């Protein structure tokens, strides 16, 4: 068999490893467009703070990792798929034939419709190359404007703050991380950032960026104010890289449309990761989650089905995120915003920036969000995904949501429930 994997992020890498594990004799090629060894975008914030060097971002640490597994790694951009003849064509005109193809081409930053967004000194923070440019421009004392306080914006806030720049954050929505945090917790992150000396403008948009000489940029805001900057970072969101897939005739929507085996509208082509519109565990609907754990699970399921046929169903991923904003850790899981007819439990400690919100449907946890908690947060995922019935523990959690570990132990561990009886 000949397998081709497009994309060398976490989904691409895990898929090639799974393909090799299940099919020792197959010919496997991984095609990625960036001129780097496969690396993790998740690690870029830590590269920006010099906690790690570039090699610390690499997904696999051994230089011969892929060669040892007889996986061919090609650094080219795939430009089209010839679905009739099962061939992929890359930028340099080369042609790769496949029996089964996995598309794991990820996402790219969206370019907000702001005049001057293409000026020199405006950068995304998405690739290692972006990070190298930011390191050059974000010198101590430099003025930096960060457009967008979503997940990516917030996670690089700390890196920028630690570089001692004068930082201004501009976010269109009324709070920080609007896709992860509600009004209460999103604004607690805002007040935390302000206490750390970051200027945060929510419900504000950047209306234009102009070059004012000396390498400086002037960012005009919808509030009428303007900020002069040495560096503008655009972090207003990402969108799946699916243009070439759509051009090749594959069905696309938000992402590449797949069935419950992660197979696309072409029987020989599968999709995984940020480009894939896979099933959401909570809603049963298909959406682009664009998170690391989902990318890895997609890759395993898709690769398994590519080798063994459709014996492994993808039952859906819990959407979840964890974020560190200048030392304030936040996390969200599943239906953190609640469900119709559901109940909730909330603990708010604004002074210490601690927050926990649980969302129930009947006596089952369906979502949660937290701030300032670093211990046992994973159990929230476990309780959601196992659909554990909480019984009398639901009322206990409504009184004190911090007792999540006790609830889990009592409701899911038979030795514990026996001991408590």
């Amino acid at each position, binding site marked *: 068999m000949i397998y081709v994997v497009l994309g060398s992020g*976490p989904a691409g890498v*895990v898929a090639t490893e799974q393909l090799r594990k299940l099919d020792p004799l197959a010919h496997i090629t991984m095609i990625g467009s960036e001129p780097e060894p496969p690396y*993790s975008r*998740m*690690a870029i914030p*830590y590269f920006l703070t010099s*906690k*790690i060097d570039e090699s*610390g*971002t*690499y*997904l*696999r*640490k051994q230089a011969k990792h892929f060669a040892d597994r007889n996986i061919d790694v090609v650094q080219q951009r795939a430009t089209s798929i010839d679905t009739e003849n099962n061939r992929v064509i890359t930028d340099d005109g080369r042609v790769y034939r496949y029996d089964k193809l996995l598309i794991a081409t990820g996402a790219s930053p969206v370019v907000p419709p702001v005049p001057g967004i293409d000026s020199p000194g405006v950068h995304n923070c998405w690739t290692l190359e972006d990070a190298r440019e930011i390191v050059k421009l974000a010198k101590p004392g430099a003025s930096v404007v960060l457009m967008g306080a979503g997940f990516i914006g917030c996670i690089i806030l700390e890196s920028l703050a630690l570089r001692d720049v004068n930082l201004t954050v501009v976010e269109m929505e009324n709070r920080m991380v609007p896709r992860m945090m509600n009004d209460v917790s999103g604004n607690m992150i805002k007040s935390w950032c302000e206490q750390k000396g970051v200027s945060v403008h929510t419900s504000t948009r950047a209306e234009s960026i102009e070059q004012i000489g000396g390498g400086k940029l002037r960012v005009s805001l919808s509030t009428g104010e303007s900020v002069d900057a040495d560096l503008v970072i655009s972090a207003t969101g990402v969108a799946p890289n699916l243009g070439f897939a759509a051009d090749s005739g594959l069905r696309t929507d938000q992402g590449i449309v797949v069935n419950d085996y992660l197979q696309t509208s072409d029987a020989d082509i599968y999709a995984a990761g940020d480009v894939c519109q896979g099933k959401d*565990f909570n809603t049963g609907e298909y959406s682009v989650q664009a998170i*690391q*754990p989902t990318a*890895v*699970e997609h890759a*395993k399921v898709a690769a*398994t089905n590519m080798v*063994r046929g459709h*014996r*492994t*169903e*993808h*039952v*859906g991923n819990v959407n*979840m*995120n*964890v974020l*560190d904003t200048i*030392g304030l*850790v936040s*996390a969200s899981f599943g239906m953190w915003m609640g469900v119709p007819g559901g109940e909730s439990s909330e603990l708010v400690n604004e002074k210490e920036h601690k927050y926990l919100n649980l969302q129930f449907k009947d006596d089952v946890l369906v979502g949660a969000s937290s701030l300032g908690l*670093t*211990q*046992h*947060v*994973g*159990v*929230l*995922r*476990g309780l959601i*995904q*196992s659909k*554990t019935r909480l019984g009398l523990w639901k009322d206990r959690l409504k009184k004190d949501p911090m007792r*999540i*570990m*006790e609830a*889990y*132990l*009592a409701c*899911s*561990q038979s*030795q*514990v429930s*026996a*001991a*408590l009886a």
Partner: protein
Amino acid sequence: MQKSLNIDPGKCTGCLQCEMACSLENEGVFNTSKSRIKVFTFHEEGKFVPYTCTQCDEAWCMHACPVDAIVVNSVTGSKDVIADLCVGCKVCTIACPFGTVNYNADSGKVVKCDLCGGDPQCVSACPTNAITYVDANATGLDKMRQWAEKTDNTVGG
């Protein structure tokens, strides 16, 4: 034969010797807040339950790690965090459905039970045999692992 921690909550008196021993072994200080094993208190029932990583086969933490910083210990079967490689992204802490991989803000890394390399200090410290280190087959490990299976994303395969 692989061994694993067996926990008998009925025998736990809540003395926290396990937490003290764990903290001393792994962090060099007596500080229960730094322990990787935790004793949970059930006020209503007047009971205590020690709990830590079950070293589950699914190894959610290991598969979620973006930088290959969690590996299987070939001797004990434990899943170990390689601190030098951990960047502190915390993805493993939300991926672990047991809540037993946790972020340590002091070090900027995650921590989890590594069975002390095969000589778990919580076991040595426990005065009532509530925590023992025994053949994996003899423990309630399989029951604990049912939780992992319930959380598994795949059917069949």
